């Protein structure tokens, strides 16, 4: 049996019943990584010895017929922006190249307690800033469906690793679409939770009012399983909501009869790929076939979301990234005259071009004389964007959109034009500004064989409903069973 092809729930069931050994599972994934990683380049760091070590422990428990933790022996990949005790956490940046965290992020502590194993840390756009993973200081991750295309970003390594069966599932982070967009580009299920649903403790900060950790998975059931493990209040993150976490898996009933699906007219934009548009229309008809009711809704400030985002996110980033000063951890320039000179050179040598650009934009937007015109203005428009969703959700239960206006693009295509790159997040960014949850699932392929993402957006803390809709859609369509040929 090719164990690496299985989903988390399939592996879990086999391991819990004692039908397969966790060591065999891990070894099968390691062999798979050995076969395809050279082509895909998804990982910054691999941790095979650690994974096998924990798998052995679970194998012994299995032999003694002891009760195993729920995800015992399930191998995962973790985006390199999430702190892992004793394992390098680089953010794909030179400035953190040798950083080894002395503590675990809360999501890691929860995954460990559930018995999940880490196979390695995945590549990303530096500090999660980008939409193609091309901004990594270390390597180019390739899209498993077409090695000439980007996997999306910034969680490109996690998305590619899942799509290429190099792990059973993965964690990513999403500030403007960084889970959902690569999820769509790589044809998998990828969920950004409500802001506050998952603890950010130990997530290296990019834009603190927008960042969320979430799962990337082979199907919606797996996304539900991972979310259940990582969600919930954490005393170490005061912005995590004290809201009960439902059993998401039990909520996957397949029943969406009478559910109101909102279709925003503002999401038909110039520059939209006709194949994407037609796939989304077909997906909406599938949902109607399952008994859902279509509602036209308005999100009138959609057109202002990208501009708002690039002020709010960069302002917060410029402040968050002040900590990289070459003093307590991370890179320090070997050549400096005095302290200020050390800061300036360390940051010049340690950060890549996109990170510098965003630090500059954010610093400018917060600087004397420009604060009101740029930063404060953006915070006010953020209120309008948020109100759009509140109003729309009075008329519908979920909102359905494309995840991105186009399928995966070629390497280099948008690297010289930052604005074009930013606009590839146009359908995902509003969700972060409003704080609402969204999931991307595969809804078909272009003629050239690239996956197309369907996004289902929900009310705050109502991940249950978007998971149910996405799962019902998945059960009615064949797309999630397709695998790239590698």
């Amino acid at each position, binding site marked *: 049996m090719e164990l690496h092809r299985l989903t988390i729930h399939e592996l879990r069931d086999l391991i819990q019943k004692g039908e397969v050994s966790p060591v065999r599972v891990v070894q099968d994934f390691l062999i798979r990584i050995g076969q395809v990683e050279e082509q895909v380049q998804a990982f910054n760091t691999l941790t095979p010895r650690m994974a096998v070590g924990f798998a052995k422990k679970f194998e012994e428990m299995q032999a003694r017929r002891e009760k195993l933790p729920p995800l015992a022996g399930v191998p995962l990949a973790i985006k390199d922006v999430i702190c892992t005790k004793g394992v390098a956490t680089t953010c794909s940046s030179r400035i953190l190249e040798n950083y080894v965290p002395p503590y675990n992020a809360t999501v890691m502590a929860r995954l460990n307690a559930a018995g999940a194993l880490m196979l390695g840390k995945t590549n990303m756009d530096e500090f999660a800033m980008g939409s193609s993973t091309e901004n990594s200081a270390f390597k180019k991750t390739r899209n498993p469906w077409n090695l000439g295309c980007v996997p999306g970003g910034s969680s490109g390594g996690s998305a590619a690793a899942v799509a290429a069966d190099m792990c059973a599932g993965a964690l990513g982070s999403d500030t403007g679409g960084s889970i959902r967009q690569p999820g769509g580009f790589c044809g998998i299920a990828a969920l950004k939770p409500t802001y506050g649903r998952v603890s950010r403790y130990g997530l290296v900060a990019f834009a603190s009012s927008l960042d969320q950790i979430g799962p990337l998975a082979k199907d919606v059931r797996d996304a539900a399983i991972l979310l259940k493990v990582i969600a919930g209040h954490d005393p170490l993150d005061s912005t995590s909501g004290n809201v009960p976490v439902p059993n998401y898996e039990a909520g996957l009933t397949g029943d969406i009869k009478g559910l109101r699906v909102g279709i925003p007219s503002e999401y038909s934009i110039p520059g939209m790929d006709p194949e994407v548009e037609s796939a989304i229309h077909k997906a909406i008809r599938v949902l109607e076939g399952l008994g859902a009711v279509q509602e036209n809704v308005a999100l009138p400030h959609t057109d202002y979301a990208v501009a708002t985002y690039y002020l709010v996110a960069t302002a917060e980033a410029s402040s968050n990234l002040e900590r990289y000063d070459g003093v307590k951890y991370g890179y320090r320039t070997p050549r400096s005259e005095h302290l200020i000179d050390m800061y300036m050179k360390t940051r010049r040598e340690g950060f890549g071009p996109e990170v510098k650009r965003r630090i500059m934009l954010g610093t400018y937007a917060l*600087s004397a004389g420009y604060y009101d015109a740029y930063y404060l203005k953006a915070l006010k428009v953020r209120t309008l964007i948020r109100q759009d969703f509140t109003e729309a959700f009075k008329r519908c239960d979920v909102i359905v959109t494309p995840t991105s206006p186009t399928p995966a693009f070629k390497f280099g295509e948008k690297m010289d034009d930052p604005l074009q790159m930013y606009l590839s997040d146009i359908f995902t960014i509003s969700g972060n500004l409003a704080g609402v949850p969204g999931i991307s699932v595969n809804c078909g392929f272009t003629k050239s064989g690239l996956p197309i993402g369907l996004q289902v957006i929900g009310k705050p803390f109502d991940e249950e409903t978007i998971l149910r809709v996405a799962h019902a859609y998945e059960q009615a369509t064949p797309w999630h069973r397709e695998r790239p040929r590698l």
Partner: protein
Amino acid sequence: MAKITRKEVEHVARLARLELTEEEKERMTAQLDSILGYIDKLDELDTSQVEPTTTVIPMVSVMREDAVRPSLKQEDALANAPDRQDAFFRVPRIIED
């Protein structure tokens, strides 16, 4: 008219403690100018009556018991230091002779 000048780019880079090469200053000025030009579309909206949103969730001050708990060991906290001396982070000279 240009939204941002090269002189402003140099000023902002100093605020951000970021040394830029001549070529980077050139490129940064052009790129920021085009991004700021795009951002100008926000001026189409009248926001005089709109409250700003800094966070999407209700924020409350969190209090906890002032109890002694285990924390990071000194050696662990120093382990990633680029330069250290005994129990201290070492930095280059701050005050000129």
